[in-house]
């Protein structure tokens, strides 16, 4: 005992130059001459970018005004009144003003389902999922489209802004997920024709740009249908986006399927499980868990790609910003820049949020593998 306390008393504090902020700076910023030079360059870059941003967005920015003339002075920064004046349009497009509560209600209902679903601790995941994937889409469809229960019918041509972006993204995700799983299973199937059809579809879609798929959906789909049958423009874009994302998702899921050891398949077969049960209960849960990062990346890509629908004449968030940038009432040298910065920020929040959430889930699911 005596020896122990002696040892404890004799433990010296670490040398002063290896701990604390000064040591941290020395080892992380100034460890060598070249490193110090890099630090100086980095500081200069940071200063330049940060000061330009603050100057543009705050110091020389305009905050109030009724039209573009307030932003036309020499050296003007951001034109924020443009955003506040057009905010409703950016969110809802030309959705009738009296009916916009319906969109808000859909957002609220979506949040009420998604937030508890995404927080791992909240119980009742099964019913929560039923609500989000079955009940909510039906309610949302009738609320947004209307025409029943005394709700005014709102044509999809009037939808716009963030509403269209979110609708295209969520329907695209929901539609591409089951199709992607089917295609991935088809590609790994023992049946040659099923395999060829899956490979053909996946490689074809992955080989062409989304624009050509959207062009096809908007220009060629009307030709494919029997005369007299017309399709909603938004629906056409949704089909194009979902088919496109499904091909990419199929490749991601195939990666997961390939990583499952043979023994899992054989064990499931030895238990006498049918193909559906083998895949649904044993293989897919493991395979999907392995490729969560890839799936989320595909979804982030899909979310960003929704902006392409503006090329076929739909007004998503970017489309409506682009449209309003050309508004002569708000003409000023900085209007366009302000609009893009706003749209970019909204897109960034969603995409960055998704990627951070997937990293969190990944760590949680990997907990079982860390032993």
């Amino acid at each position, binding site marked *: 005992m005596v020896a122990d306390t002696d040892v404890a008393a004799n433990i010296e504090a670490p040398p002063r130059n290896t701990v604390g902020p000064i040591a941290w700076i020395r080892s*992380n*910023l100034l*460890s060598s001459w070249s*490193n110090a030079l*890099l*630090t100086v360059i*980095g*500081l200069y*870059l*940071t200063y330049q970018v940060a000061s330009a941003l603050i100057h543009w967005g705050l110091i020389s920015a305009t905050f109030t005004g009724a039209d573009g003339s307030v932003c036309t002075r020499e050296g003007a920064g951001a034109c924020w009144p443009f955003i506040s004046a057009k905010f409703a349009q950016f969110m809802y497009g030309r959705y009738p003003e009296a009916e916009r509560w319906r969109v808000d209600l859909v957002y609220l209902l979506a949040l009420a389902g998604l937030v508890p679903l995404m927080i791992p601790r909240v119980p009742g995941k099964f019913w929560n999922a039923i609500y989000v994937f079955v009940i909510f889409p039906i309610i949302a469809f009738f609320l947004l489209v209307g025409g029943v229960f005394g709700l005014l019918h709102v044509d999809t041509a009037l939808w716009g802004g963030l509403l269209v972006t979110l609708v295209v993204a969520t329907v695209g995700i929901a539609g591409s997920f089951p199709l992607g799983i089917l295609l991935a299973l088809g590609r790994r199937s*023992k*049946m*040659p*024709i*099923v395999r060829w*059809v899956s490979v053909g579809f996946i490689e*074809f879609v*992955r*080989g*062409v*740009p*989304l*624009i*050509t798929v959207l*062009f*096809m959906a908007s*220009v*060629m789909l*009307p*030709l*494919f*249908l*029997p*005369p007299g049958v017309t399709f909603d423009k938004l629906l056409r874009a949704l089909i194009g986006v979902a088919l496109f994302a499904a091909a990419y998702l199929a490749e991601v899921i195939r990666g997961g399927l390939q990583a499952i050891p043979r023994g899992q398949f054989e064990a499931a077969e030895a238990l006498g499980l049918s193909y559906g049960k083998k895949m649904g209960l044993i293989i897919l849960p493991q395979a999907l868990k392995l490729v969560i990062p890839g799936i989320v990346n595909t979804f*982030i890509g899909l979310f*960003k*790609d*929704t*902006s*392409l629908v*503006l*090329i076929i004449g739909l007004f998503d968030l*970017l489309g409506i910003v*682009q449209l309003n*940038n050309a508004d002569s009432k708000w003409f000023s*040298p900085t209007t*366009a*820049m302000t609009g*893009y910065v706003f*749209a*970019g920020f909204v*897109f*960034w929040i969603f*995409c*960055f949020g998704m*990627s951070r959430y997937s990293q969190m889930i990944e760590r949680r699911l990997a907990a079982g593998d860390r032993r």
Partner: protein
Amino acid sequence: MAVVTGDQGRARSHHAQAAFLYRPEVRQAIYQVVLVVLLVALFYMLIHNTASNLRKQNIASGFAFVDRTAGFDVSQSLIDFNSSMTYGRAFLVGLLNTLLVAGLGIVVATILGFVIGIARLSTNWLIARLAAVYVEVVRNIPLLLQLFFWYFAVLKALPPPRQSLSVPGGGFLNVRGLYLPSPVPEAGFDLVALIMLIGIATSIALYVWAGRRQRLTGQQFPVFWTSMGLIVGLPLLVHVLLGSPMSFEYPELKGFNFQGGMVLQPEFLALLLGLSIYTASFIAEIVRAGIQGVSKGQKEAALAIGLTHGQSLRLVVIPQAMRIIIPPLTSQFLNLTKNSSLAVAIGYPDLVSVWSGTVLNQTGQAVEVILVTMCVFLAISLITSAFMNWFNRRMALVER
């Protein structure tokens, strides 16, 4: 005992029928036949509908329109083009413009991506953070938005020609584009070019020879410096000796616009900037993952046998990281090429803009035009992946 009653016989044959349906081969055959029938029916319906729709709109199908006169001009073209030329020629113009911007974009994005990917792993905290911020900001914003930003908010907001910003080296930047001096070869320059070509050929031969010699004898040869001398030094020497047979034509402000030199149009600049900056953020992540994927022991072993830091990176870490990097890098190159089709949104005359845009609108031949566009992109994808797969096989780990 052995007598089979009628009841038992019926049950057995029933059982046999059920067993027949449960045989995997039979089931698979049934599924596949159903799939084929469905697909044939679908395609028959599509073709039938398309044919009757086209008949109704009086559009003749076929590729006869390719030889008709286009009647429109293209703002940027690598080959001769004017409005009296054919739609076929316009297709070629668009294809070359797509290949130009995609090729340059791949080069710029790769360089930028490698620099930022390595910077993310820097021991310098600030540099690593800055690279991380770049990646997280750029890759979470849609490419189309970034293209609009560069085109409408930056390049189209530049001053008019009279108030041009000057670029070091005799160039000018204004709302009409980037004006640069263009090289004008004079008599005797052919000789310089020839010597440079010979230098490149000799360097390749030298590289092969030096590699073989090192494998056989272990002696090293300064290949890099010798090659630099052959490719850069010697032509430069000849160039000076011949009295610099190459001059530059500088752009000059005449009236309302610049004359002379060469001009990079804002559409092209915006597309190149947007594509490279966006794709570089993905390449940076791939490079980072590749370098982190090389086990630490490899680096330590390289340092232990006396290689310098740079040598260990160049000879040990990077070659192994390349094995991890190449497959995803290939798909980024393909993505960049496919994304170049967004040119249509800012008016750069690429394949989609000229062919699936203007030509489609003028002729109405939607089916042919879209099919050709898709086939071109498919062909580019297949050729690129074939090449990268070959390259990947060369780099792959050779195991027993």
